[in-house]
C-alpha cells in the first residue's frame, strides 16, 4: 500500500477539458500517452524518438508500417529487455500518422 492523493492538485479537477480526437502526429503522440515512455532526445522507459528516427532513416518507408504495427500491438527485442506496451485503442490510420511523425524526428 498505499495510494496517495494530493488534495490541492485534485482540486484542479474542476477544469477538466473534453478529450479531443486529433489527427496530426504530434497531437496523437501526446494524447495517446506516448510521453509516458518516450522523450524526444533522452532515453526514458523507451528509446528517444530521435534515436528511433536515426536508426530507421535508411528504411523509412518500410519501417513506417512496422512501427505502426508496433504502436498498436506492442513488442520488444530491439531496444533492450522491456517490450513496448500495446495501444489497442489506436487505429491503424492513426498509428501510421504517429509512425510517420516519429520517423520525422531525426536529430
Amino acid at each position, binding site marked *: 500500500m498505499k*495510494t496517495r492523493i494530493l488534495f490541492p492538485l485534485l482540486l*484542479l*479537477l*474542476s477544469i477538466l477539458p473534453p478529450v479531443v480526437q486529433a489527427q496530426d502526429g504530434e497531437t496523437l503522440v501526446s494524447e495517446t500517452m506516448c510521453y509516458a515512455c518516450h522523450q524526444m532526445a533522452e532515453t526514458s*522507459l523507451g528509446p528517444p524518438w530521435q534515436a528511433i528516427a536515426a536508426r530507421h532513416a535508411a528504411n523509412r518507408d518500410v519501417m513506417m508500417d512496422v512501427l505502426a504495427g508496433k504502436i498498436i500491438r506492442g513488442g520488444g527485442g530491439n531496444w533492450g*529487455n522491456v517490450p513496448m506496451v500495446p495501444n489497442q485503442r489506436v487505429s491503424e490510420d492513426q498509428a501510421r500518422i504517429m509512425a510517420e511523425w516519429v520517423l520525422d524526428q531525426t536529430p
Partner: protein
Amino acid sequence: MFNKKQLGKTLAVFLLYTLTTLSSAATIDGIVVDQNGNPLRNIQVTYDRGSDARGATAVTVFTGTDGRFSFPDDYPERINDASDISSRALGYIQLDRVLDADRRSASVTFVMQPVTNQVDTAPASAWLRRIGDHSRQAAFIMNCIDCHQVPASEVRHYASLIDDLHASNPLQARQQSWDSIVKYMNFLSAWEFSRGAREEGVEIDTDAVYAVENSEDVVNLLSDIFDDRLDHIAGYEWGAPIIATPDTTIWDYEVPEPNAIREAVMLGDPAMLLAADVAANRIVGIDVRTGRQRNFEVPTDYTIGPHSLHRGPDGSLWVTPLFNNTVAQLNPDSGEWDIWELTTSTGGGVGIHDLSFGFEHELLTDENGNIWFSDIGNRAVGYFDPTDGKTEIWNTPVAESRAADSALYGTAAVYGLVMTKDQKEVWYSQLGNGVFGGFNVETKEFIGPFVLPSANAGPRRITISDDDVMFLALYGTGQIAEFDIRTREMIAIHDLPDTASAPYSVTWDPVRKVVWVPTANGDVIYRFDPETREYGVIPMPREQAFLRMIDIDPTTGVLVSSYANIVENVNGPRMAFIVDPGDGAYPEKFSPASASAPVPAQ
C-alpha cells in the same frame, strides 16, 4: 352489402392490419445444447445490436434447465445470419450456431463445448489465485485495481510480449518490464487525474496522484505471479450458485466515446439512464426505450466533473463531483439545475464524495432538511443547508492503530456515507486505512472510529438496511462487513466467493432483503442474503466489466449500474446497464418498451 362508409372502414382496418403485420418486430428464442444434444443451463445468450440500435446496445438472457432461452423484447431490425447473437459461459466455447429466421421471429440453436482452458471466459480475478497470500493480495488490489482490472487482456498480452523476448535472464527481464509498466501506469493515472491542471511543458508528476507508492513490492509480485504467457487458466468457479434464470435480462446501453463514465441511475419520464461523466461537465441521459442520448450540461462556468449520483425522494438527481465545492440537483424531466457552491463557516472548501444514502438508497436528509456529505478532501463529514447554503464540516478522528496509514488525505479518505432511519446519525467509511465510524448529527459527536482487521480492507461504498445494519464493501480483502449500528457491534465479516473480485460497493435491497455486490475485478454481481448468509451470482456478459455502484429502481426492482473502466487507455466497456434478476420480487415488471411514456417530439 357494404356501403361506401363501411367499405372505407374495412379497408382502413385491413391496411392498418397489413402495415402492422409487415412492420411487426421480431422475437428471438432458441436453445443451447452440448455436442450430444443435451440442453445446457445457465448459458448467457447475448444479442449485440450495435451502438446505433434503437434501444439497448446489447441484450443478454440466460438458459433454463431445458437449455431454452427467450429474449423478452421485440426487435424492429431484420434478424439474419449477420446478426451478432452469441452464447457464453464460464469454461465453454461456442462450437456452432444455427439461425432460422423470418421477418417476425428468429430461432437460434447453439452448440457449446466444455473446455479445460478458461482463458476466454474467466474473470481477471481468477488469475490472482496465484498470489496465495490473502494480505499480499489485498495490498495488490488496493494498489492497482483502483482504476482497472488486473490482469486485464492488455496485461495478459503484455505478459506474452515479455515471454517473446526469450531473455537470457527471464526473471530480470520480467522485473524490468513490470517495473516499466508500473511507471507507465503511474503516468497514465497522473494524467487521468490531473486533466485540465496541466500546462504545456510541465512534466507530469507521476508520484502525485493515485501513484503506486511501494512499487518495488508490486513489481516483485507481478514478476512472481505473472511469469508465463498468461494464456492458460483452469478450474475457476464462480463459487456460488448462478441465480440468473430464463427470466433474467441484462440491457447494456453504450455511451458514445469519449467519455469517463462513473455512476449511473435510472430516472425520469420517459425513463432515462443517467450516467455521470467525470471528464466532462455533463450527465449523459439515455432514453431506455429509444437509446436516444440527451446530454445534461451542468450550467457552471467551470467543469465540476460529475462523479456520484443519488436519487432524490422527489425523483430528482443529486450530483456530486470529486474534490470541488459543488453540489448540483437536476430535474431530469425539465432539464433544470440547481447549483450550490459551498464554503465552510471557516472559509474553506469541501471535497464531496457522497451524500448520505438512506436504506432505500436515495438521498436522506436530517430532520432539519440538511444534506450530509462525506468530505474526501478534508477527511471530514459535514452538511449544507439547501435553503441558504450554510456549510459545516467536522474532521474525523484518527484511529490510533492506523495513525501511520492516516497521515495522508488519500489513505484516510472519507468515502461512503449512509444515514440511519431515524435521521440522527451518519456513518462513513474511510478508503485506504480500513476504518469506519459514525457521527451524531444532533450532538455533533463522533461514534468510534472502528477499525477493520486489515488496513487494506478498503472499505469503499457502504449501505444501510431498514434495521440500521450497515454493510461495507471491503474492496481490498474481498469481503463484506456487517455492522449493527444500534448495538455498535460487528455482526460478521463475510468472505466473498472470490476474494480477488474487488467489491466496489454494496446496496441494500429493501424489498428482497438482500445486499447486491458489484465487483470491479470479477465480472459478476453477487447477491448476499444476510439471513441465510448465502451468496448467489449473476455473471456479467462482458469481459473487463469494471462495475460501480448499483442502484435499485424502486418500482420494478431492476438493478442499474455501469461499466466504468477508469483510465482512458484501458480497454473495456464504458456503458450503463440494467439488470432484471427476473425473480418477480417487485410489483411491476420492467420492460424498456413500457418503462417510459411516449417519447416527446424533439
